[in-house]
């Protein structure tokens, strides 16, 4: 069971309080009706599924209820950072450097 830092609560808590919510920074298009079938399928289904640092979303489902973003290494399952929804995508190179 991994531990997750909730950026809203400011606490690191057991995974059981959280729900995974898929890849992060996939923005629902402003005007869906203008999307091609390919674009819409990509929005719905295509995912990076990376082995290594992964941008993803979690929800503190049994806590503050907020969705937030995270970068986690999918090989070690360790988080580099978690950050609030709406905050920009952190610089990955810098994160990796800091985690060394």
């Amino acid at each position, binding site marked *: 069971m991994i531990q997750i830092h909730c950026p809203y609560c400011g606490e690191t808590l057991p995974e059981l309080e959280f729900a995974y919510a898929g890849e992060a920074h996939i923005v629902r298009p402003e005007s869906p009706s203008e999307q091609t079938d390919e674009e819409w399928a990509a929005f719905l289904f295509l995912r990076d599924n990376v082995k290594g640092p992964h941008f993803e979303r979690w929800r503190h489902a049994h806590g503050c209820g907020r969705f937030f973003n995270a970068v986690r290494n999918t090989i070690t399952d*360790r988080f580099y950072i978690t950050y609030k929804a709406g905050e920009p995508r952190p610089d990955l190179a810098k994160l990796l450097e800091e985690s060394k």
Partner: protein
Amino acid sequence: MSKHRLRGRGRVDASQPVVFTFDGKPYTGLKGDTVASALLAHGVHLMGRSFKYHRPRGAIAAGSEEPNALIGTRRGPGRFEPNTRATVQEIWDGLETNSQNKFPSLKWDVGAVNDAAYMLFSAGFYYKTFMWPRSFWDKVYEPFIRAAAGLGVSPSEEDPDTYASRYLYCDLLIVGAGPAGIAAAREAAGKGLSVVLVDENSEMGGTLLSEPQSKIDGKSAWTWLEDELAALKEAGVKLMTRTTAIGYYHENMIGMVEKLTDHLPTLPADTPRERMWRVRAKQVVLAQGALEKPLVFHGNDRPGVMLAGSAQTYLHRYGVKVGESPVVVTSHDSAWYAAFDLQAAGAYVQAIVDTRPQVRQDLQAEARTRGIPVKLGHTVTATGGRLRINTVRVNPLNGTHVGNGQWIKCDALLMSGGWTPSLHLFSHTKGSLIWDDDLTTFLPKDTPEDCIITGASRGLWGVEAALKDGSVRVGEALSKLGVEATVSDYTVADDRVGTGVTMRELPTDRSAGKAKAFVDFQNDVTAKDLRLAVREGMRSIEHVKRYTTNGMATDQGKMSNINGLNIAADALGKKQPQVGLTTFRPPYTPTTFGAFAGYHRGDHFEVVRKTQIDGWAEENAAVFEPVGQWRRARYFPKAGETMDQAVARECAATRASVGIFDASTLGKIEVVGPDAAEFVNRMYTNPFMKLAPGKCRYGLLLGDDGYIRDDGVIARISDERFHVTTTTGGAARVLTMMEDYLQTEWPDLNVWLTSTTEQWSTVAVNGPNAAKLLQPFVKDFALTEDNFPHMSCVEVEVAGYPARLWRVSFTGEIGFEINVPAPYGRALWETLWDAGQAYDITAYGTETMHVLRAEKGYIIVGQDTDGTVTPYDAGMGWAVGTKKADFVGMRGLKRPDLVAKNRKQLVGLVTEDQSCLEEGAQIVLDPNQPIPMKMVGHVTSSYHQGTTDHPIALALVEGGHSKMGETVYIPMPDRTIAAKVTGTVFVDPENARLKI
């Protein structure tokens, strides 16, 4: 005093005899004994039979790594478990034990014919045969193989014991309470940290329990141990015995299982049998020690052949001499001490056989002094004796040449192939290992966890080395925890350090192909099996392991992995690390299922959610069904009624007068804020901007893929407040989905969501007399068609309770849903129930609800839809606000396949022969086609208990909306049913009955 017990020795209590049985025969042991030590005290070595060859076996070890001495243990009805290690199970008065895997008896086992035919049962033999004739596998070969395999028998009764679990957070967890672990604990104690020291044994001390001769800082080992543990306890260290760290999970989470009652003669009240501790430690120290390796030679499995270190344990910890005339065979110094100690205890050691040509002078001198014959540079090539060893064949080694053998009589053979660090938990951390050529073993290297490993588990031998290492190594953890790292110095006298060499199979003068030199004892894997696997192309240690089953027995390779690796590496001509080590997998030792299940069994397996009205239903004989986490009343049978009869009665009564239904489980979400209407409008397909306060509207919720996810009635309470309902099972999903869109996609909207599912008890009353029943209880509000038309809502007082009263119907009858604060639900229900007697009010459950709604063609999401159905498929295009700029699912609905022709569409079906279709039955157009048939749909709902004069069904049928009046066919196993495609509304298509 039993024959082989030494008075005044060991840590057993001579004043407390304990009587237990083994295979029906009573034995007397002492408090503190294990089954194995007590049997050995009586000279009983034969304790089990092996897996494949059914060879007689005795205890080879004295701890949890034991592969041979597995027994069944029983404490009266329901309390039986197979495969218990006799070397771990403590005895208590009345304990019943039995041997396993034998027929008819342990001493005469017919399964041992396998042993005679052992040449056939080589590694992988079953992959090469049993293929002809084809039909024999299922009927003959496999049943035979299955019956021969397995060890003990499964329990056959429900377990009457309880199990528990707890979370524990601490600063420092130390696994293993031998010298290294205790020394680590000493440095951590008294510094304001929460420290936990845990050991799987019934008492702490590890090696010290088997080596009382050593003197630590001037104290005898056992005095030192006692003082040290007392000091730790005094300093607030949590000491846990009989507690096994079974697995090392992410970020220093350790699973530990504490055995609470298996050693007790009587079971205390309210005490679980075992408890799972889920520990999260900031720092972990692993001090699990090392395991002794067997030597691999022909006949190394005969009862009486035992690890030398284990013989030491039996002698010092239990006061048991495992033999009166033992022979010691070793490639490591440590076994020499076993010979010395046994000799000192009155045994006559027949010989110390060491494979090494040169051994430390002091050891040789000591052996001479004690009068023990020594054979350096010798090998063992055979043992004799049927159920217990009585002779051993010893041959001189000259380089690779094996000289002539000589038989030596003995009653025990104590072996040592050296020691292997215990790296199991370290490996669970995904820690890396490094091969050490000198020690011929893997040692721990790096781990990603906050974890330190110390003592013998990193290859250090001797008490002093372990103490010093524990004391020093814990410093890193202490520094990380922000306290001062201190180091204690230790002086240990009479410490026993030693070295050795690693052997593969011992050299022999016999045909290697015929040698039964066991590597994995329990699974009967021999050295030649390993070599055969390599010969057949198995190059990875994983392949070798899987092909031979080496290391897959209940000791999980504790006895066999390193010997297996050494032999496989030799066969491959590679270094060990190139062949690899098989992964250590949790749990460290086999762990009771109940300990994982914990409290979650029976009634408490999973939460059962109950409405506030559930108690009334229970008292009124409702039959319940599980729906998601809820239990819901399915129907209310009267005495002698079947479900069909009850449902028919409930349906008729509701259509005739009035029925009452507990709808409290429906999901409810309060949507509040200036942008509430905008939000609901974006989420649901229907237009909501113009819905007036006081009005309700049906809402359909899609996923962005365009498929129906949920539905419900939505009431606008005020301009900025909506009361949204969802399906019972969908409540949590829908709220999560809404929060996701709100927080992630539309954070600019000023609207908030609150789950009010449980704020309200919801009582539905339906039927022609519903308004009449309800009116007297509604304060200052007229339930007339004009004042309160269908699909309206109002906040009023009902029966004295504040209520949200809705005029809605899921039955086609005049219907109301009265929402009152949850605790008042039952009182409201009972009030209406009492008053309803004047109208023959009938309580109905979910089954009747399903029938009544189906008669009106109202869908149930998840039954009439299945996650691949669009609103158009469901005939609910009317619910789609096509003029809206966007809603969730709008774009998805336009995908090519969702607008394709001939999609499955929801229709009604009426059978020609008036029979009732089975839900899930498949529909075809041509009933005479051969199998596989072209299916065009299936029956989603079907009922015959309703109020129509014929059974009704709903179905999804390809192009169904354009097949009205056509006949389709439902082929059943015994006949084909013809049905006419109809609309989905079977009762009151004009909705006349909805009018008050």
